[in-house]
């Protein structure tokens, strides 16, 4: 079964796999998580703002994005972003957008919908007395959010946010559908070039499994440590 298994093809591909592929995957994951959490928090605040129109827009966005498959959303943005760029800059033709920028925008917009639901739960988990006390102390809305509500919401939701980031890390492999060489894409390029798909896909699976298991183990440890004793 592993008789003609070629380990050397993996060794030779290592620099390309990790320096190009994995760097792309990890950078995309980190920046999308940061952007997604920021945008998601804003959306969650819009939904909880009590302003009906703002809340409706945010709710519609979240429901809309969450009912679409990621692959379809990747296609949408891949073709839409150049036109939006043209519209924003007033250029004569649709602008050229790099693979990284295009996927970053896609993942921020897509994950923001999921992160916003987590942040909404986090904000709602804080007792009503907290913002009331902040207001009694004379804090403005933005001060209440910045110093009282959001720090606690983040702390409560940190394990869930990190778990969602692990899901995001796995989901970035789907940029394969628009032929962007992330880690899996790089493995597939080498595998097809050398006719060694079996070795490359098994190795990619091993790496994804190792990273995800270590990360989710870390999240579980963290969860036990930072849990607030009530």
């Amino acid at each position, binding site marked *: *079964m592993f008789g003609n298994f070629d380990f050397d093809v993996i060794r030779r591909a290592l620099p390309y796999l990790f320096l190009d592929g994995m760097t792309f995957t990890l950078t995309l994951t980190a920046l999308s998580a940061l952007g997604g959490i920021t945008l998601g928090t804003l959306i969650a605040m819009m939904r909880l703002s009590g302003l009906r129109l703002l809340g409706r827009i945010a709710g519609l966005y979240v429901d*809309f994005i969450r*009912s*679409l*498959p*990621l*692959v*379809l959303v990747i*296609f*949408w943005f891949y*073709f*839409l972003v150049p*036109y939006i760029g*043209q*519209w924003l800059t007033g250029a004569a*033709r649709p602008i050229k957008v790099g693979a990284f920028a295009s996927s970053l925008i896609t993942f921020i917009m897509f994950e923001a919908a999921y992160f916003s639901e987590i942040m909404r739960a986090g904000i709602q988990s804080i007792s009503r007395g907290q913002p009331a006390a902040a207001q009694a102390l004379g804090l403005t809305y933005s001060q209440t959010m910045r110093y009282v509500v959001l720090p606690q919401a983040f702390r409560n939701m940190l394990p869930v946010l990190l778990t969602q980031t692990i899901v995001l890390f*796995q*989901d970035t*492999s*789907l940029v*394969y*559908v628009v032929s962007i060489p992330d880690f*899996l894409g790089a493995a*597939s390029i080498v595998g097809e070039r050398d006719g060694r*798909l*079996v070795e490359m*896909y*098994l190795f*990619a*699976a091993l790496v*994804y*499994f190792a990273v*995800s*298991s270590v990360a*989710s183990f870390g999240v579980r440890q963290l969860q036990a440590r930072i849990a607030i004793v009530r």
Partner: protein
Amino acid sequence: MNYHWNWHIFLEPSPTGDGTYLDMLLSGLWLTIATSLCAWVIALVAGSIIGVMRTLPSKLANLVGFAYVEFFRNLPLLVQIFLWFFVLPELLPSAWGLWLKQLPHAPFYTAAIGIGLFMSARVAEQLRAGISSLPRGQKQAATALGLTTMQAYTYVLLPIAYRIILPPLTSEFLNTIKNTSVAITIGLLELTGQARAMQEFSFQVFEAYTGATVMYLLINIVVVTAMRILEQRVAIPGYIAGK
């Protein structure tokens, strides 16, 4: 935007030779529904077995369930699909591998089984949470009445656990439908795949994806409505969801 919109494209004949572009998308829609239903049956059956195993008093059953869930949760779906589609036939004895490769509709079977197993780990976790949320007295009362473990699960624990986890199961079913789009990578022409093909034939990018988007939204609405009715039907009196 200097994009040339042409909404009539849906009624124009597609180069595949059977019907209009709209027919193309509709055939994708049916394939999406068929694939996700098959995957969902696999996910429910395998997920129920593993979920129950994780709540059994046996250490071994627990460990097997844990390993199963970890395996399917820590690999991206796309990698799992590739493993089933490209790697498995090579690792099997060559006669079996050849048979697998020549199987008609291989992308469909691979997608249904691959996505089904991927989702089964999620179903298992939901079911485990549902069973552990039951008061301990339920299991004890069943044992006191002389029910075997098997009977306790089939007559007491599972009927309540399934009803408790119905809302999260609905979102897992919706995820199954959305995940079928990953099968585009092994050439399954489901809804997203047909939209992609329509875009490549007609160059009407945004119309094609709008068509697919509308269909996904419709599936969503139908499933959510149906599940809400089902939830009301099977709600347990005395629980918050019940009457």
